[in-house]
């Protein structure tokens, strides 16, 4: 091994860097950081002081505004003088731009909170003080925020003079300004809404429409124009908004325009037009509604049906009847049925999951007849099914012969045992029930046929594990499973018994089910007292009394027996040219032991021999015994013999720490000594003695301490050994006990914490690695 100091790795050469630049760079960043923090501090202080000043100003303005708002002509002379003085004072104050701004803010805030006469006085005060002039100036700004705030201010304070200035912004490219202008125009003058609808070129968002409607709603003495005039607008958003306004203000004078809009390409407008038609009961729209129906989208179709339901009459039933046959969409079909019932009440009655009246009346009468039907159906099915299965087997065989190079096919099961099949059978039986009264014999034939067809068409093919393709060709597993007949609960249900089909080429597998809970497939054995049913050889007997031949109760109750039997079966057996696969279950303990043995085989050595001997003595399972013996042989002969392992000639007697110690520095050596103290044993004595003799004083002292500790531990171990012998041999019975020091006990405890020597070595290795790598 090459000492680490002798390893030479050529380092990648890096370009030289002038450290002076680094210093300059650091200083620059520091200066920038200081400037940044100073800037933040100044801005923060400025904002705080401005807020403080604004607050103070508001408190100062507040009583003045109150005086103005609640001034009455009936006030006393003194109050009138006070009012005049305040007016002069406030005019002086607003000469300062800051004060003017604060006063505007105050008035705008109060405008929102006050109503009635106070609000009117407030608006007058705003105008009287000339604060609106500053808002006009804002409209001329280049910044969209300022323009927007100017429009808002003028709108809030209801400055009518600003109308002419604001309408310019109706089609402004900046969305916020445009929307603010739209609200202002509608708000300021009654004709504003007309101007807006005439001139706007942009989209009117849903939210904006709501806001505009809110403005209109709150306008006092507002007389809405006829919004039908704007249904011809080229801006589809204007048309849509107009339709909504028509509906809101209930203006039914635009009937033709609205009906025409049913043909509009935009679905929103179509839907809104349909709403209007419904709202105003435009019966003349019915032909157009029917006309546009065919090309309409699902939601529009539903809206049209709804409208027809509202405004239609019985003459429209024919159209709806056609739709009932034509429509496939569930939602539309539901709406069609609903509309039919609206136009012609109770014309459509519930049909889903409704049993016929015969079901309730003829149940008792038909019980006997039904039993006969069941028997005949059962016989027919048991006769027909094997033939069908045989056909399938032949087909499968042919397929396999045709594709000999195919990879392993996992399962081959032909089964009819799903819930769906049971339901189908039930349906068929119900059908039989209903028709028993009329002609039992005819129905039986039809039912037999249909059941047979179902059983054929819905056969499920699964494939069992296959090793040899020739063998698989001969092996087919078939199970047919249906519900048990429950005459007391259901009128007619029956259960197809599990079928096991076997011939020289067919292996039997039976599935059992009880109340629809399917238990896993299991192999049948001769020991289970179940007679195999060889379809091809025993068709005749099977037809006659197959049910009686099989002891199903025994089968269903013998699961546990089977489990234990299965575990004893060989994994693969070859009988009569047939390969049988069986599950080989292992007990949990055995499995654990096998896992342990495999781990020992992978990582263990001769030191595991005692454990293996123990396992050999404890276990009886032949599998475990075989594997244990294998491992004992392996470790006994491929490794040093146990008696050689601990001899002085063997390397193993040397401490495992020796090599690591020799390549470590002083600090590492000290750590290593601590680890030796913790986990070392007598093998470390030689190493420790050599350290005491050869190493420096510090290391020698530490080694002495460790040596002393290890020796004390050896004494303890010997004492334990004596105790063990003493317990086994009465000769060693003494009337005193060997005591352990507290430190020794602690040490023993620490060694008993479940860590193996391997774990501790790993831990020590990690500690050393961390130490070396800082």
């Amino acid at each position, binding site marked *: 091994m090459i000492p680490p100091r002798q390893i030479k790795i050529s380092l990648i050469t890096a370009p030289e860097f002038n450290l002076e630049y680094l210093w300059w760079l650091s200083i620059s960043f520091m200066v920038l950081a200081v400037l940044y923090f100073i800037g933040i501090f100044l801005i923060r202080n400025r904002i705080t002081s401005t807020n403080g000043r604004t607050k103070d100003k*508001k408190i100062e303005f*507040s*009583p003045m505004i109150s*005086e103005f708002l609640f001034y009455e002509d009936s006030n006393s002379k003194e109050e009138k003088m006070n009012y005049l003085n305040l007016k002069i004072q406030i005019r002086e104050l607003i000469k300062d731009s800051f004060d003017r701004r604060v006063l505007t803010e105050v008035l705008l805030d109060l405008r*929102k*909170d*006050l109503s*009635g006469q*106070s*609000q009117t006085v407030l608006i007058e005060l705003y105008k009287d003080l000339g604060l609106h002039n500053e808002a006009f100036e804002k409209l001329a700004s280049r910044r969209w925020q300022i323009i927007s705030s100017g429009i808002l201010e003028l709108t809030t304070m209801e400055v009518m003079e600003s109308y002419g200035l604001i309408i310019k912004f109706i089609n402004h490219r900046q969305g916020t300004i445009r929307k603010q202008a739209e609200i202002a125009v509608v708000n300021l003058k009654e004709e504003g809404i007309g101007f807006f609808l005439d001139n706007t070129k942009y989209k009117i968002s849903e939210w904006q429409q709501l806001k505009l409607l809110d403005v209109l709603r709150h306008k006092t003495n507002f007389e809405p124009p006829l919004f039908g005039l704007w249904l011809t607008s080229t801006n589809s958003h204007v048309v849509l908004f107009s339709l909504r306004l028509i509906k809101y203000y209930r203006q039914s004078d635009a009937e033709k325009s609205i009906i025409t809009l049913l043909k509009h390409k935009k679905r929103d407008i179509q839907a809104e037009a349909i709403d209007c038609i419904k709202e105003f009961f435009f019966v003349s729209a019915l032909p157009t509604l029917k006309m546009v129906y065919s090309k309409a989208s699902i939601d529009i179709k539903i809206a049209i049906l709804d409208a027809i339901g509202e405004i239609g009459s019985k003459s429209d039933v024919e159209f709806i009847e056609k739709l009932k046959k034509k429509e496939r969409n569930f939602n539309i079909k539901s709406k069609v049925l609903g509309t039919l019932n609206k136009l012609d009440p109770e014309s459509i009655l519930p049909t889903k999951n409704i049993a016929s009246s015969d079901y309730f009346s003829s149940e008792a009468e038909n019980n006997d007849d039904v039993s006969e039907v069941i028997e005949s159906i059962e016989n027919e099915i048991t006769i027909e099914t094997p033939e069908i299965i045989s056909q399938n087997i032949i087909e499968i065989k042919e397929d396999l012969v045709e594709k000999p190079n195919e990879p392993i096919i996992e399962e081959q099961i032909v089964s009819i045992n799903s819930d769906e099949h049971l339901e189908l059978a039930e349906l068929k039986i119900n059908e039989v029930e209903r028709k028993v009264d009329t002609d039992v014999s005819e129905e039986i034939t039809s039912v037999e046929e249909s059941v047979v067809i179902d059983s054929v068409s819905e056969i499920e093919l699964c494939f069992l594990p296959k090793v040899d393709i020739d063998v698989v060709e001969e092996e087919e597993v078939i199970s047919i499973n249906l519900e048990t007949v429950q005459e007391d609960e259901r009128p007619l249900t029956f259960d197809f018994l599990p079928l096991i089909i076997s011939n020289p080429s067919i292996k039997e597998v039976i599935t059992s089910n009880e109340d629809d809970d399917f238990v896993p497939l299991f192999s049948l054995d001769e020991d289970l007292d179940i007679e195999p049913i060889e379809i091809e050889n025993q068709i005749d007997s099977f037809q006659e009394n197959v049910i009686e031949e099989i002891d199903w109760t025994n089968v269903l109750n013998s699961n546990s027996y089977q489990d234990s039997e299965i575990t004893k079966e060989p994994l693969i057996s070859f009988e009569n040219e047939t390969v049988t696969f069986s599950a080989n279950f292992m007990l949990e303990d055995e499995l654990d032991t096998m896992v342990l043995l495999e781990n020992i085989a992978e990582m263990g050595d001769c030191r595991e021999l005692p454990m293996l001997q123990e396992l050999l003595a404890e276990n009886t399972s032949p599998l475990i015994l075989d594997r244990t013996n294998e491992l004992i042989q392996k470790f006994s002969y491929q490794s040093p013999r146990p008696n050689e392992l601990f001899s002085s000639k063997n390397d193993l007697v040397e401490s495992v720490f020796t090599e690591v110690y020799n390549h470590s520095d002083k600090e590492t050596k000290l750590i290593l000594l601590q680890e030796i103290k913790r986990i070392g044993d007598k093998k470390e004595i030689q190493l420790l003695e050599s350290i005491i003799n050869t190493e420096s004083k510090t290391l020698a002292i530490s080694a002495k301490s460790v040596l002393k500790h290890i020796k004390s531990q050896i004494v303890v171990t010997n004492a334990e050994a004596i105790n063990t012998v003493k317990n086994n041999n009465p000769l060693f019975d003494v009337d005193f006990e060997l005591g352990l020091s507290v430190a020794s006990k602690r040490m023993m405890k620490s060694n008993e914490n479940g860590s193996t020597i391997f774990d501790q070595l790993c831990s020590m290795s990690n500690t050393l690695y961390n130490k070396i790598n800082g």
Partner: protein
Amino acid sequence: MGKRVLLADDDQLLASLLNFRLKKGGYEVHHSSNGKEVKEYLKTEMPDIIVSDIMMPYFSGIELIDFVRNELKSNVPIIIISSAGNEQNVLSAFELGANDFITKPVSPTELLVRVAREINKK
């Protein structure tokens, strides 16, 4: 000496206006800008009428009604000021024992009339 009105509102501007109006109407007004102040004041002195905003820091108008009616066991008239569209709070206030309510935007004159009416009822 006029009747004492406790005006509880965190909006300084509006409170100042209402204060001014009520004082002008001949009432002695004590203004508190948050629920804590209101609580402290009520522990020491009971006004003839309380005018309170529903939304207040620390202690809402609803809690104030509950405090007055259930803890202080007082029947002092309470007028609630609430924003429009806050019907649920108004209903809660009435359930707890508020006597009247007025919605924002407030007409100071209307408030004055309502205060006078409640005091007269008492």
